[in-house]
Each structure stands twice: as structure tokens, then as C-alpha cells.
């Protein structure tokens, strides 16, 4: 006896084919909703901000007058911030990932640590701001300097970098480790010569995406007490500063309607920076990507 009746199959075929094409359009619609929202957002920002975007906008300091307001201090401040955040978070993050993946024994404690690193990545950024305020600004007396903000941002994105680096290191095939150890290489030689070169695209992509999150974060900076109106450029990491999202936040909360346009221009600058960083991540991934 046959379990599958040919006639019943044909009878059901129509419904299956309809469902098949319906779901195609459901998923297409889901994609379009996101795309349309993005296009509207971009259109609004560009149409508002385009008029304000000029060389002077990039080279002027903040001002009470919308037509004179510029983003110089914030742009330079954000770059300074990255100068602190990038080395701190990448060194600590990749170091922890190497330790957890290559050295740590597999036991309950390391499993617990791993799990909580992933959880940390989900902690709201304002909480990290409070942590930074307590430790760096007050306890270590760094004030609202670039260093204090940089350390806070590093803590914020550290879990993301650790998790991304762990994934990248884990995806290096075990056979490559075996081959290296089998020739008498030490663990450190194996890590430096085999594992890190193979994992570097994943590590850098994850790190740059994490950095672009840091450059757009506002909440921790507000909590730390980073000022908005600054009429000078920082000379070192101990100076106070302001950052792009702070400046945008300030402009968009001002009563004069012209400042909305200034804020839109600021958003365009921030997005350009983000786009630039993300494209670096893509280039690195394509350039270093190796197959096994």
C-alpha cells in the first residue's frame, strides 16, 4: 500500500503554490517597510540639512546664531574620542577573546563569564555612563575629559568586540591549530602566526562596527557631563571636549526652528563618518577574507 496518493498531492498542490508566492511577498513587504522608513529619514535629513552643509559648517565653532553655527569642535572631539576608544577597546577586547578561547579551561566559571559577556552587550548605554561617572570621572578624578569619556565608551563596546573576536577565533578551523602544534609550535606562536591572521577580518569588522556604535552614542556622554558649547579644540586627552551626537542633541533641542536644519547638517556629517567607518570594515573583510 502507498502512503502518498498521487491524486491527493495534485489536489493540495494549488494551495501550496499560493502559500509559496504569498510568503514571498510578505517578506518583500517586510524589507520594503524598513527601506521606505530609511529613505524617508534620509530625505528629511538631507533636504533640511543640505542648505547648511558647507566648508564653514565644518570649520566653525558652535554659535548662538544658527547661520554661524559649526561643527568643528564636535567633529574633532569625536575623532579624539576614537583615538582613545579604538586602542583601549580593541587591545582589551581581543586580549580577553584570546584568553577565553585559547587559554581558559572549559569549566563552569568560564562558561559563566562567556554568558555574561554576551549579557553585558545588552546593558543600556546610560548604565555604562553611570559606571564611567563613578569610576573614571569621580574615583579616578579624570573629570569630563576625553580620557574619561573614552574609557567609558570602551567599556560600553568591549563586550561587542569580545564576542565578535571570540566568534572569529572560534571559526578558525581546529585542523590549523593541530598542524601548528604538531610541528612543535608553542601556543603563542600558533596564536600569532596562524590564529590571528585567520581571524583578523572577523575581529576588525566586529571592532569597527563597535566603534561606529561608540561614535554615535549620546547617553554616556550626557551622564558624564560632557559640555556642548566649546569654543576651542582639545590639546590632549585630559582636556574637555564635545562630540558629534552631543552637538546634534543640543541643536535639535533648541527653540529656534533654524537650528533644526543645523542639526540635520550635523546628522549628515555623523552619518558620513559612520559610512566611512563601515566601508573600511567592508574593505578589510573583502581584502583579508581567506577560504579554508
Amino acid at each position, binding site marked *: 500500500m502507498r502512503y502518498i496518493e498521487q491524486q491527493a498531492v495534485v489536489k493540495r498542490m494549488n494551495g501550496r503554490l499560493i502559500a509559496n508566492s504569498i510568503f514571498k511577498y510578505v517578506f518583500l513587504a517586510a524589507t520594503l517597510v524598513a527601506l521606505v522608513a530609511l529613505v524617508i529619514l534620509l530625505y528629511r535629513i538631507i533636504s533640511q540639512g543640505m542648505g547648511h552643509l558647507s566648508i564653514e559648517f565644518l570649520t566653525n565653532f558652535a554659535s548662538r546664531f544658527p547661520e554661524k553655527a559649526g561643527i568643528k569642535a564636535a567633529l574633532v572631539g569625536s575623532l579624539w574620542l576614537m583615538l582613545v576608544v579604538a586602542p583601549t577597546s580593541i587591545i582589551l577586547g581581543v586580549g580577553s577573546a584570546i584568553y577565553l578561547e585559547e587559554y581558559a579551561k572549559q569549566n563552569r566559571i568560564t562558561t559563566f563569564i562567556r554568558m555574561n559577556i554576551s549579557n553585558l552587550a545588552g546593558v543600556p548605554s546610560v548604565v555604562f555612563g553611570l559606571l564611567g561617572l563613578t569610576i573614571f570621572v569621580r574615583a579616578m578624578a579624570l573629570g569630563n575629559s576625553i580620557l574619561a569619556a573614552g574609557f567609558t565608551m570602551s567599556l560600553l563596546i568591549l563586550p561587542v568586540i569580545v564576542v565578535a573576536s571570540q566568534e572569529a577565533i572560534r571559526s578558525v*578551523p581546529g585542523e590549523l591549530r593541530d*598542524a*601548528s*602544534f*604538531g*610541528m*612543535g609550535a608553542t601556543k603563542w606562536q600558533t596564536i600569532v602566526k596562524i590564529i590571528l*591572521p585567520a581571524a583578523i577580518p572577523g575581529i576588525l569588522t566586529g571592532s569597527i562596527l563597535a566603534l561606529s556604535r561608540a561614535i554615535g552614542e549620546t547617553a554616556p556622554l550626557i551622564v558624564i557631563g560632557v559640555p556642548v558649547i566649546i569654543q576651542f579644540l582639545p590639546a590632549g586627552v585630559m582636556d574637555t571636549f564635545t562630540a558629534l551626537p552631543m552637538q546634534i542633541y543640543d541643536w535639535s533641542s533648541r527653540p529656534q526652528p533654524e537650528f533644526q536644519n543645523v542639526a540635520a547638517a550635523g546628522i549628515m556629517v555623523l552619518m558620513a563618518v559612520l559610512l566611512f567607518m563601515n566601508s573600511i570594515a567592508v574593505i578589510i573583510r573583502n581584502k583579508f577574507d581567506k*577560504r579554508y
Partner: protein
Amino acid sequence: MTTIITEKTTTEEVNDSAKKAVYETNQLNLWYGSNHALKNIDLEIMENEVTAIIGPSGCGKSTYLKTLNRMVELVPSVKTSGEILYRGRNIFDHDYGVEELRTRVGMVFQKPNPFPKSIYDNIAYGPRIHGIKNKKILDEIVEKSLRGAAIWEEVKDRLNENAYSISGGQQQRICIARALAIEPDVILMDEPTSALDPISTLKVEELVQELKKDYSIIIVTHNMQQAARISDKTAFFLNGEVIEYDQTDTIFSNPSDKRTEDYISGRFG
């Protein structure tokens, strides 16, 4: 398959008394956690011979091979007792550096596992980690190793290409060349042809015959004809024990244990 006709093309009359043992295994036991994987192994492996280890899956043959260069310790929760003397020295001694052992004992793995680097850098990897920086010396080592693995002619114009750009059989010979580049004394091979096509397999087998002049080779294989073709001695493992260890001719023509006979005649395994 009831009988296996052993045809060994290059078997010279072996005089055992003139040869020295590279490995003497005495009462080796090994546990993965609570799983007793190797039980009271006693084996003496001679230099400049090909020793084959055969047995069904899970019998401990790969485990034993990986114990010989202590790669097995990469598995967490491994415990051992007993001793393995390599050239008279117990490899489990606390002052025996595992890196030192592995420069004397090369390994070729089941699946070709070249590094995602150029062919040249693959071969030069071993010498470099042991501190050789001179480009001229490295060049010579690379050529010598590739010639030793009988692949020089095929890749000499492509040394800077990625090792993944060549075929699987060539990759495996690159891996053999890479093992030769550290100038080992012993080469361990863990089913080196199981992922290769018949022609590549034949090339690797011929190579093994060639290499035993200069190296002692211990090869784990699933393929009994292969063991019969290329080895001088064969050890039959079953459930973590050595059932029989003898000249390959004897094992395949006149085994003394019923279980060996059953296995090589294909009645189980």
C-alpha cells in the same frame, strides 16, 4: 574478501636485531574522562620501518598515534599512565618539553590541512618557528622538503600561490613536505589517504615507501590492503587493546589470534 594476498614491492629482508627501537611503549593506559581508551599497551616500534596500525573505528588507534607526540593532550580531561620511551627517554617526563618532542616527531593528519598561506610559507612555517630566518637556508629547506614529498616538480613554479589553489592530493603531499621541513626522526600519519582519490592515494603510498629509508613511519589506516601494501609491521587494535603485533606478512597470512583473522578477512569492523 576472504584472503588478502600481500604483495610487497619493496620489502627487503629485514634483520630486526640490527635495528633500534624508536618507541617503546610500556603498560600505557589512557582515559578520556572515565572512558578507558587505551588498555595496557606494550609496543616496540622500530626505526626505518613502516608500522601500520589497523582496527575498527573507536579502537584507539588514532588515540595511540596522537599519544606518541602528545597531541592527545589537546583534548581536555585526558589522563595517562605507563610510559612511552622515545629514543630511550620517557615522553611523559615533566622536563620533556612537548615542543621539543614534536620537532622530532612530525605528523600528517587525516584531512589535508595546509595553512591559508602560500605553498612556500606552509613549508617554511616549521623552520621559521624554530628560529631559521635566513632566506637562502629557507629556500633550500623548502626545495628539499618538496622534493622529499615528491611534489617539487608539480609546484616549483607556483610556490607563491595559496596552498588551497592545488588539489586535495597535492595538498596532502604539501602537508607531508611541511612535516619533513622540520627534519623529523619519526613521521606519524593519521589515515593520510582517507580523504584522497585512488591516484593520489597511490602517490602517497609510493612516497611512504620512499620515506622509510630516512624516517620511521607510523601510519594509522582503515584500509587493510594499504597496510598490507606499505607496512613492515602491523599492529591490530581492538577496544583499546593491542590484539596482535607482528610482521605484516604474518598478520595478513597467518594471524595467531582469531579476532585478527576475523577483522582482516572482513568478518567485522
